[in-house]
């Protein structure tokens, strides 16, 4: 049944619809942008009406939301959390720091471009982005998922060498278990 191309397409549409309308978010809130998450989730902006809700552990989560700057030390934890999530999984980079380093562009312990280390599906610009922008980012992600274009997990799998090389450039003492997706 699933070998048939047409029926696979229909299954994909249904599955993608389910994926886009139920997003469990693991908020990696070490950056200052984490303060924008509570208003996004609570009564003022209420992200839950789009099926967005928090997840407690990476195992249950679909979206890894990285809120703000990432020190080299916390990049290691982000990679670990991302690799523990289960396919398909998406990453939203949140705030200028994840895009180009932001105000920490020349700092010795803050990375500049997040997408060189893990595949980012959607960036939300701003320092810090307001909850409306966050919800707009999620809406963009949902559109990408529905179109089947949010394939960061696939890219990561295929270009693991590239990402590992960049990661190991910063993390010299690599003690993490192997990635098994």
């Amino acid at each position, binding site marked *: 049944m699933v070998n048939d191309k047409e029926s696979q397409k229909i299954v994909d549409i249904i599955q993608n619809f389910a994926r886009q309308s139920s997003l469990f978010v693991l908020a*990696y809130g070490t950056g200052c942008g984490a303060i924008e998450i509570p208003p996004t989730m609570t009564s003022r902006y209420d992200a839950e009406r789009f099926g967005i809700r928090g997840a407690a*552990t*990476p*195992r249950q989560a679909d979206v890894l939301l990285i809120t703000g700057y990432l020190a080299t030390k916390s990049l*290691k*934890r*982000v990679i*670990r*959390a991302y690799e*523990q999530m289960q396919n398909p999984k998406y990453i939203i980079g949140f705030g200028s720091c994840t895009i180009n380093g932001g105000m920490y562009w020349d700092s010795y312990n803050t990375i500049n471009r997040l997408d060189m280390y893990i595949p980012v599906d959607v960036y939300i610009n701003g320092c810090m982005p307001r909850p409306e922008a966050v919800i707009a980012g999620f809406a963009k992600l949902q559109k990408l998922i529905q179109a089947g274009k949010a394939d960061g997990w696939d890219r990561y799998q295929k270009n693991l060498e590239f990402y590992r090389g960049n990661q190991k450039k910063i993390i010299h003492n690599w*003690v*993490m*278990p192997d990635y*098994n*997706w």
Partner: protein
Amino acid sequence: MSNIIIILAIFGWAILTYIAFRLNKTLGNIFVGLIAVALPVYYFTYVPEDYSFQVMGLTLQFGFTSFSSLFAILVVILGALTLLYSIPYMNKKDRLGWFYLNFLFSIGGMLGILMSKDFVSLFIFWEIMTWSSYLIVIFSGKKVNKVGVKYMVYSAIGAYAMLMAIVLINKWSGTTNISHFFETFADYSNGAKILSSLLLLTAFAVKSALMPLHVWAPNAYTNSPMSYTSLFSGALSKMGIYGMALVAIMLYTNTGMKFFGEALAWLGAITAVLATFWAVFQTDIRKLLAYSSIGQLGYIAVGLGIGTELGVMAALFLALLHGLFKGILFMAAGAIEYRTGKTDFSELRGLIWKMPVTFFSALVAIIALAGMPPLSGLISKWLIYEALLSSEHYFLIILIFLSSTAAFLYCFHFLYGVFLGQREDDIEDVKEAPALMLVPMVLMSFGLLALGTFPGLIFKHISSSMSYLGFNDVTWEMSVLTNEWGNKIYLTHLNTMFMVVFAVFFVIITLVARKKTRRVGTKDIANAGEPILAEDNYHFSQDFYKPFWRVISPVMKYRIETFYNSFANGIGEFFQFFRRVYTGNGQTYALYVVIFLTILFIVGATLI
């Protein structure tokens, strides 16, 4: 004649085994293996026949009754399996001849108790059983003062109580025949009734570790080798149940002394609750299982105490079942101890794929212990509850339910603490136990599985043995349970349903998604992104049920041991005071003589 021969043969074989072990270890092991096979074969093929002889004016009679042969089945099966299990388990120890001598003597003693038809031979075999078990409890040579003396003191209390009862019965009825005593019991005066039955009950309650006479049990179960503890907890303690059943049913229920039966039931329920609570907080596998044994024996006492048909049926069923599942659990504990040398929860973890057969046997036993479908524990629990419900014991059932719910706590603790959780590196070279240790466990697990759906296999024996206790026409069906109000459960439907649904979902989730699933180790956990290094271990083993302890600690403060200790101290103080009389000074003694003479003079003068 053949009855007494089996016991004499066991005793004789025990001595032969002892000699064989002095000669050669392998020869001794062959002797043990032979008797382990021969015992059940002989027991299930011979034709029972009564035998009696006279010695010193006493008539000693032997022969299985339909009631005692029920327990004999348990003793024979469990005895044979534990003997088999012992061969590899004890292989590395010294003084094996002495161990097996006592082992076989306790088996012979138990069979002797079951076939004694008079009190004198019962007492003799009881003492043989007690002494041989005592010698095994102190076999390891450790904690003899603490454990051995405690066991001996409580056994002595039981033995003296029994001896006193026998002397009284002989004086009142002129004979020591057991069935004669039961038949003429109704003619005794009230005081004689109460005194003799209470004395007998005390004797039996000590062996079955009923509160408040349980103090010896946890340490004795822990201190003896695990292969023997399986028999100790599984079969030897059932001798107490055997006697208690006789006393509770033949004396209390059948003669209208219901009050004592009720008291026994309440004692059993309190035993069950408190022992379960203590089991929850143990940090040693053997201790946990020991307290759990005490709790389960409490259930049996409840069933016997209320004395209705269902209650007795439940008690007898649970008595047999407890032999099976506690046998497995102590054997599993022994296997773990054999392979790792550790029995403490803080040192054990993650053995599931190192010892899979042990784990699945223990899982089956735990499910049976907790009373969950589809295994046989549900049947015993169901029968007890229905018995309590139909005899309208409102609060007893709550206590029993509290105890069996709290039992889930220690069940999980046992399985998690030993088999699950994060694996530690120092158990990497642990192997599964030897085959001869696994065979008994697996056989008994299959027994539990079979009884879970077809309890009629045992009900057949139970109903015939209950006719001896005065319950005629006990109805039973192969896999349908019926309570006194006519409500039924169909075990075949229940278990088939459960297993079919389980199998269907198992196939779905395993096959449909098999390519998606990745196996990872227990150290690959969601830990806030922090990778767990090889030397780290996040196994949860300390203060396992701390919140529960905070709830029930007000009750747990009062321990009966404290009372016994203060009692012993008080006696010591008392005699210390009297010791001061002997000052060692001649003048004081002279003064005593003068005072004594003066008193004598005054008393004599007033009397004259």
